[in-house]
């Protein structure tokens, strides 16, 4: 604080203390916040005030005043309603975990294969043979790929909105981004399969021909409904949430830090690198994890796009192959939930998805809270 600033402040405090129209509460906090001098003034000002009248029993009103008896029944009812709603929410979430587990357990016990490492999924006959390895691979691969594509772009957009564009322009752009979030996922799926898939086919072919020797990019049978297309669509779908959170975090960068960097002669990019990005790091990580959680649980878009490989097809790690995620597997076979053991197998897959998304979301919250504290 410069000298002139300080004197100005003191003068302000003087006027505040002298002006009876200003609330003493506001005056008090201001004085405490800024400098010790006006606090003294403030106390002097208030000392002659009459001492508080001695407390008298609350029930006894002055003579002649009739206090109505206030009924607390309404309060009690309302309060218990609110508490009941809260408890209902808590129970609801506990029930989700509990019932999924309860219905999955019998099928898991009857499973002839290793649930975690098997790739087969035979639930039709009397013998249950199912495992989640294949589903897990496709789910995680597509979601991580989507996150890897979405996060850099989202960062760029969030920086553009907060650091580059004028408020008049960034408002409408933010609005458009929010609208992107409102497009239902089935429409993204439809668009991804019929429009984006064919459009990306040349790019996929080029990738296969240049770096196809890496197993992840190796050639596969049907490149149309591939994990690659699914992840691009997933990336588009998680963009808005990552942008929205990063934008809010970047917008809260302390003005002082930005101005300090500018005063040292930093270019706009250097301001971002030295002030904005460090301030927003935890927020961005948390936003990315929330986006990942969305991508992991996305059902219908992925189900429409991905080509289901035939039963017993050999495993390929390629992103240009089809596949099934947890969510798409369950939704694809929803019509077949006829026996409890069969349903149990799908519920077991759903339970794993629940646990995975829960873990990812929990990490996001923890990172965000740590960031908020520091």
């Amino acid at each position, binding site marked *: 604080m*410069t000298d002139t600033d300080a004197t100005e402040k003191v003068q302000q405090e003087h006027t505040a203390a002298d002006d009876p129209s200003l609330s003493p509460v506001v005056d008090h906090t201001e004085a405490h916040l800024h400098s010790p001098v006006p606090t003294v003034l403030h106390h002097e000002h208030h000392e002659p005030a009459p001492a508080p009248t001695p407390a008298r029993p609350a029930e006894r009103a002055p003579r002649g005043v009739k206090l109505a008896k*206030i009924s607390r029944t309404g*309060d009690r009812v*309302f*309060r218990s*309603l*609110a*508490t*009941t*709603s*809260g408890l209902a*929410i*808590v129970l*609801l*979430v*506990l029930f*989700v975990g509990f*019932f*999924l587990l309860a*219905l999955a357990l019998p099928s898991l016990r009857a499973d002839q294969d290793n649930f975690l490492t098997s790739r087969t999924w035979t639930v039709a006959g009397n013998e249950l043979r199912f495992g989640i390895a294949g589903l897990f691979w496709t789910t995680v691969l597509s979601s991580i790929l989507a996150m890897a594509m979405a996060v850099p*772009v*989202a*960062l*760029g*957009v969030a920086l*553009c909105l907060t*650091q580059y564009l004028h408020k008049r322009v960034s408002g409408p752009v933010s609005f458009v981004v929010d609208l*992107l979030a*409102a*497009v*239902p*996922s*089935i*429409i*993204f799926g*439809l*668009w991804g*399969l019929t429009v984006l898939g064919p459009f990306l086919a040349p790019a996929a072919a080029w990738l296969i021909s240049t770096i196809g020797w890496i197993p992840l990019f190796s050639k596969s049978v049907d490149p149309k409904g591939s994990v690659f297309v699914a992840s691009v669509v997933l990336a*588009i779908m998680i963009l808005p949430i990552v*942008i929205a959170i990063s934008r809010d975090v970047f917008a809260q960068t302390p003005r002082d830090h930005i101005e300090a960097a500018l005063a040292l*002669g930093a*270019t*706009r*990019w*250097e301001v971002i690198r030295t002030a904005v990005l460090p301030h927003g790091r935890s927020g961005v990580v948390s936003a990315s994890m929330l986006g990942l959680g969305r991508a992991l*649980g996305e*059902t219908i878009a992925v189900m*429409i796009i991905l080509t289901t490989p035939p039963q017993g097809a050999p495993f390929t790690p390629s992103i240009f192959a089809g596949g099934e995620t947890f*969510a798409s597997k369950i*939704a694809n076979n*929803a019509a077949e*939930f006829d026996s409890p053991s069969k*349903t149990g197998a799908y*519920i077991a897959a*759903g339970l794993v*998805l*629940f646990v995975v*998304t829960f873990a990812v*979301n929990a990490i996001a*919250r923890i990172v965000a809270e740590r960031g908020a504290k520091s």
Partner: protein
Amino acid sequence: MTATTTDTPLALSRPSGVRTLKNALATVFVALATVLTIIPLAWVLATVIIKGYRLLLTPTWWLQSQRGITPRREGGGAYHAIVGTVEMALICAAIAVPLGVMGAILLIEYGRGTKIARGVSFMVDILSGIPSIVAALFIYALFITIFGLGRSAIAVSCALVLLMLPVVLRSTEEMLKLVPDSLREASYSLGVPKWKTIVKVVIPTAFGGIVTGVMLGVARVMGETAPLLILVSYAVGINFSPTSDTMGALPTMINAGRDQPPQFPGYERVWAAALTLIIIVMLLNLLARFIARATTLKEK
């Protein structure tokens, strides 16, 4: 600043070449990213509008169902699906809104900082991360496997409650937080009991924001497909009964017809249904944002 006077003139220089280049590259990257984000939205909207707008201009689209219409035949409309989508969303809202608003009241008015508030808040965080397919599976497990009920539109609405609840609760909570304490205190000082203060002072003040949250929640659940796939069968006819096991809905109408080859009339109906769904969802979103802007409570 003014105290440090220098005799020599300030040697100001532009940033070096590398720094200027880096700065320019960053600007290009940021601009590209923004364009890259807007392109898909424009592309999706353009595709859906171009492929689907023609049917929406005919009155039959809004007044008739798909009963007796095969993919190879022209005609029919989406009335059954619009009714189903709206009905399921309304039933869902009827359950989720009271629960969400009361939950938010518990968090802000009664239990601020208490253990129960923290527990509820934690659970809402979990709920907001639950994939729609898991919510659907839970309702399937509870209603159909355990209670032995059949598939029904009500079951879908219950699954949608799990998805709408966090949206309503969080937005209501944010709005209640913005209601100034002075309003509450003024009401208390007049001897108004707490519950009446909440009902007559706090909620009316935050009403615009609460409505916005509800509309955004409704818009979100209308576009959900996964619960519809698991919990109800798609019906091509008009059906108002939420307890029957078949009901039309726009997402399942799209899903049921998505494999049609482009030369069939059914193909165009899929895109028309997509456009109808987008229009409904976007209108709700725009309206919600408009209400939010019109009734906004200024922070501080």
